[in-house]
């Protein structure tokens, strides 16, 4: 596979999903990502017992694989002075320093930008944070449930006003995974800039900025007009103003989403596919203007039509329909979606328990139509000795560092 980041070393001092996910994307793209973990505790995310109501298998841990595949783990205690001296040695060999530790911690332990730049002036310094590296709350920590979903306004906009309170995020690390990709994109641009100008720069992505960007159309609208669209209560019918958009319920409780934003050219084709061809000749629905004016009545007709057949019928039957639509699938259903599989959305890594390979979702970018080829996430501290020997640390020194509890 085309390894666009081959030869780039990323030194990652980060935990959880958001910032490690940036490292995982860069590792997918061929970078040598060295993940620093506490010698005893490892990444705090290794201690997760549950994900929502689902209990995690600690020997086949999907939560660790997603943001850490393709990396090597070095157990190094950043609170130990000898450990920090070793971190500087590693930083000298790296192109990118990637961290989500808070400013006060970076200062306290000595791995803020000035400390890392003192040993490697050409390193790109990339920070992920909850709320950004400027302003009064730069030192406040957070997760995507707080910074992205709650404070970021996503939860509010996702929730129909009729409900008593905002919906919760629902998908673990939802904001983290989006934010990690944002960070990987920023790092890639910084590497390009360094390549062209010789200048190493610093960059920031926060979970808040991730929410703001993801919700940018609504936020810009709110800034301009003072109001935003919010989610509506689930119903089988058209969205206000366009009956070819909206969720429609099938006879067996499934849902077909219509999303034909420009309905005019599709009127006959869609009504024919829905088994109500006569509607295309009804003056209330026969051209775009009339259809959009009479959206509610058209929506009722369509709801009745779709409600007559089961989900699987529509899923097959609508394949030749000209307008945009989709079957509503669960995150379990999509694993067998043939189109997703045709685009290599799933790749496999060996499992640490020697059992069946683990299936993982690839990053959103594909180069040269090639599937992702990488290795499983490391165990905590798995590569400590091998990596240190690779950068020239002698075995005697490795033993001395171990005795000093600076490394695993």
């Amino acid at each position, binding site marked *: 596979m085309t390894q666009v980041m081959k030869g780039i070393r990323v030194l990652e001092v980060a935990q959880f999903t958001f910032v490690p996910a940036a490292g995982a994307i860069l590792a997918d793209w061929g970078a040598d990502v060295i993940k620093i*973990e506490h010698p*005893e*505790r*490892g990444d*705090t*995310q*290794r*201690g*997760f*017992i*549950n*994900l*929502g109501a689902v209990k995690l298998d600690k*020997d086949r841990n999907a939560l660790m694989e997603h943001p850490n595949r393709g990396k090597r783990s070095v157990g190094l205690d950043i609170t130990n002075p000898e450990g920090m001296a070793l971190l500087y040695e590693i930083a000298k060999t790296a192109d990118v320093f990637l961290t989500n530790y808070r400013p006060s911690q970076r200062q306290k332990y000595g791995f803020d930008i000035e400390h890392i730049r003192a040993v490697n002036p050409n390193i790109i310094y990339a920070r992920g944070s909850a709320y950004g590296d400027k302003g009064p709350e730069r030192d406040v920590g957070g*997760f995507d*449930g707080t910074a992205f979903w709650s404070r970021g306004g996503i939860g509010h906009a996702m929730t129909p006003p009729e409900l008593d309170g905002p919906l919760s995020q629902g998908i*673990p*690390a939802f904001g983290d995974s989006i934010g990690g990709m944002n960070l990987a994109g920023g790092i890639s641009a910084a590497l390009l800039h360094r390549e062209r100008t010789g200048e190493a720069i610093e960059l920031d992505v926060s979970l808040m900025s991730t929410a703001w960007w993801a919700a940018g159309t609504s936020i810009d609208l709110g800034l301009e007009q003072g109001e935003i669209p919010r989610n509506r209560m689930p119903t089988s019918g058209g969205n206000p103003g366009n009956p070819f958009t909206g969720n429609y319920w099938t006879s067996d409780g499934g849902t077909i989403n219509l999303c034909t934003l420009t309905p005019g050219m599709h009127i006959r084709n869609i009504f024919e596919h829905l088994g109500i061809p006569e509607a295309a000749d009804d003056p209330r629905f026969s051209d775009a203007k009339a259809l959009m004016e009479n959206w509610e009545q058209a929506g009722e007709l369509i709801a009745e039509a779709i409600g007559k057949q089961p989900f699987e019928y529509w899923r097959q039957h609508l394949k030749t329909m000209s307008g945009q639509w989709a079957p509503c699938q669960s995150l379990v259903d999509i694993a067998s979606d043939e189109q997703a599989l045709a685009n290599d959305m799933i790749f496999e890594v*060996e499992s*640490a*328990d*020697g059992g069946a390979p683990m299936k993982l979702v690839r990053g959103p970018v594909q180069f040269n139509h090639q599937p992702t080829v990488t290795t499983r996430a*490391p*165990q*905590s*501290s*798995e590569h400590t*000795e091998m990596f240190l020997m690779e950068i020239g640390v002698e*075995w005697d020194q490795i*033993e001395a560092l171990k005795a000093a509890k600076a490394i695993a």
Partner: protein
Amino acid sequence: MKPGTKLKSATCDTEVMVIKAPADAEIACGGTLMTAEASANSQTIDPAFADGTLMGKRYVDEAGTVELLCVKAGAGSLSMNNTKLGIKDAKPLPSSD
């Protein structure tokens, strides 16, 4: 035993790299001594040593005299001088999302 030495199990697929071990240590997997040239699954596994190994994990004794890094998982248990080795486990902080 020299650090970096690779040992293979004769009773399963397990392979380890020696991080440290006493010179006279008898390191076994599945109840049979491990060697550099052992042929995987050529011997019967001792049911008393059949808990399995996990790739990337480190295996140690209680006194900390031995440390083996598992580089290939298998069905046997690692032991030194007939005593089973345990996983040098990270001590994760209990968390939930």
